[in-house]
């Protein structure tokens, strides 16, 4: 592999890593604070993508579509928390897995009823449709850079919110010791609803951003769900930092695994996860189990 290919592959890795982070951060946030294993997380990714497709078709502009779809998916997150997830905080993980699996089926069926089973493309906005030549044969789509920049923006905003605001303080406190926050008299119920809706919106945002490069199709949520679980488990359940590092690592392992070990490409990320877990069963940034 020559230097230029190596650099382009590294770029591919980082770009994929950023997108994974966006999805995985919502998942880890929901688990860390709410203690809920949310299998329906991938469904929000799918819903975001379908909303982007549908609204972009109606408004003719992806940015307008995203601006409309973001509050919609936030509201949907609130509704799901109120109608379903909210009843399960005190329950065993098995109940959560069953319920959220049921949600997957419901969302998939809704998707089929609302948008059908065809594969849809979402046009890249004209503003970003150019490609930047990198090597003599390959250019890099501007839109992929845009995805990375947007992800960096979200990551930075999350960092600020979590480390510099009162809401962030509550989130961190909630992750560390839920009962204590409750005992100190903070409205945990509302905090939970907010966190769940934020997590849903983050994932939906990732779905919207990736709609033009991924296309929109039935079952797209399940694929992303599995890989984001891998990311979260590597990073340590509940850790945002861990989700970031995990996403980047998976980005690199996946990309270079495909090139160097094509026969074992589908295996490489799982083998990597197994290796990390053997070394640190709680994940890279996970709290050591008591």
């Amino acid at each position, binding site marked *: 592999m*020559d230097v230029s290919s190596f650099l382009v592959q590294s770029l591919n890795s980082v770009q994929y890593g950023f997108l994974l982070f966006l999805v995985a951060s919502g998942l880890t946030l929901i688990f860390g604070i709410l203690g809920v294993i949310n299998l329906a997380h991938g469904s929000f990714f799918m819903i975001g993508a379908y909303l982007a497709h549908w609204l972009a078709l109606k408004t003719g502009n992806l940015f307008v579509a995203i601006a409309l779809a973001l509050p919609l998916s936030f509201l949907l997150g609130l509704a799901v928390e109120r109608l379903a997830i909210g009843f399960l905080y005190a329950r065993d993980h098995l109940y959560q897995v069953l319920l959220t699996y049921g949600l997957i089926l419901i969302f998939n069926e809704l998707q089929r009823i609302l948008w059908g089973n065809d594969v849809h493309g979402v046009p890249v906005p004209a503003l970003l449709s150019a490609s930047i030549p990198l090597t003599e044969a*390959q250019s890099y789509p501007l839109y992929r850079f845009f995805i990375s920049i947007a992800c960096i923006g979200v990551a930075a905003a999350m960092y600020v919110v979590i480390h510099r605001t009162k809401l962030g303080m509550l989130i961190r406190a909630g992750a560390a010791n839920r009962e204590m926050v409750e005992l100190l008299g903070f409205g945990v119920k509302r905090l939970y609803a907010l966190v769940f809706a934020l997590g849903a919106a983050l994932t939906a945002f990732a779905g919207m951003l990736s709609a033009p490069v991924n296309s929109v199709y039935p079952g797209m949520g399940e694929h992303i769900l599995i890989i984001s679980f891998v990311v979260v488990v590597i990073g340590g359940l509940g850790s945002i930092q861990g989700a970031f590092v995990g996403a980047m690592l998976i980005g690199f392992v996946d990309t270079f695994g495909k090139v160097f070990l094509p026969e074992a490409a589908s295996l490489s990320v799982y083998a990597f996860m197994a290796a990390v877990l053997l070394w640190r069963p709680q994940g890279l940034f996970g709290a050591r189990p008591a």
Partner: protein
Amino acid sequence: MTTRKTPTRRRFLSAAAGAGAAASLLPAPFVLAQTAKVKVGILLPYTGTYASLGHNITDAMIMAIEGAGGTLGGRPVEYVKVDSEADPAKAANNANKLIAGEKVDFLTGPVHSGVAMAMVKIAREEGTITIVSNAGADAVTRQMCAPNVFRTSFSNWQTCYPMGPEMVKRGHKKAVSITWNYAAGHEMIGAFKEGYVKAGGQVAKEILIPFPNIEFQAHLTEIASLKPDAVFTFFSGGGAVKFMKDYDAAGLKKSIPLFGAGFLTDGTLQAAGPAGEGIITTLHYAESLANPTNKRFTAAFKAKTGRPADVFAVQGYDTGQLLVHAMKAVKGDVKAKKEIMAAMRAAKLDSPRGTMTFSKSQNPIQDIYLREVKNGDNVVLGVAQKAVEDPGRGCGMT
């Protein structure tokens, strides 16, 4: 052992009376049989990703039979539909439901090759006359071929082999192939490679991606660094759309032309948009074929269903045509299996895809067309290879 009985007057009389009674009774069951319904079993997906394929095949098949008066050999038809869900795990059960449960006279379907394998296995054991109306797995008319198993669609081999010589003819001597690591991918790419190497081409690298993964970016970078003359690919559905878009966005289409199996650009072009333009594929059909049968067929299908016809509808239509043809030959007598199968074997169908006959392994002998995507349509450039016949390797009937 029977002992010969001495003829007596009495015996003679009773025998004569018996014969007379039998003769007078004879026409009754015969007439009954003629008006009894012919049961056509249909195992196709009506839910899930392949639902639209299932509906197109079914509607076109019924349209063909209705076009011939709505009867098969003068007898009314009962269609027994079972949703295959394109699920190989349920295929054996579903096929049994139709063969043993419903006792269908004919079995047709499915879309998915995994379902086809299970269905054909049972049909071989039970002897039900079976027409495969889509699934392209080579084995159906190779190792698993049987006198009662016909196919009106294609074999994977058939659709890709002609592209090899075509690419060499265009001066592309070194190619990279890329597909999913699953049976259909192996068969399509394998057939292409067979034709390509035979014509003097060299496959620099075969990239296999775990099914149904669609993150291609790393592989595109690899293709760019290998710098082949051309790329041959097979993906379908969402994967096809994504691959065409990514290939274009990576700037590869300008320097390395993209060729593919026909299903790459069937039903995917609306979603692919400009990224599909200029891609060249081979298939046994294209909507834009100019023959009069196709013009009549596409108009009639649109009028009946409100949907545009596609390659799947054509295959369903020809399944219907084959049933009409064979049942006409035996005047509706479903018990005359041998004669039905002989009629099917000898059939020469006037298909929207052009004239179609059957090989010894009972797979279509058909022209494979060369098509290029222009303005969002598969435009026929010409015939890549005339009367392509699957070699039927491993089939005892060839």
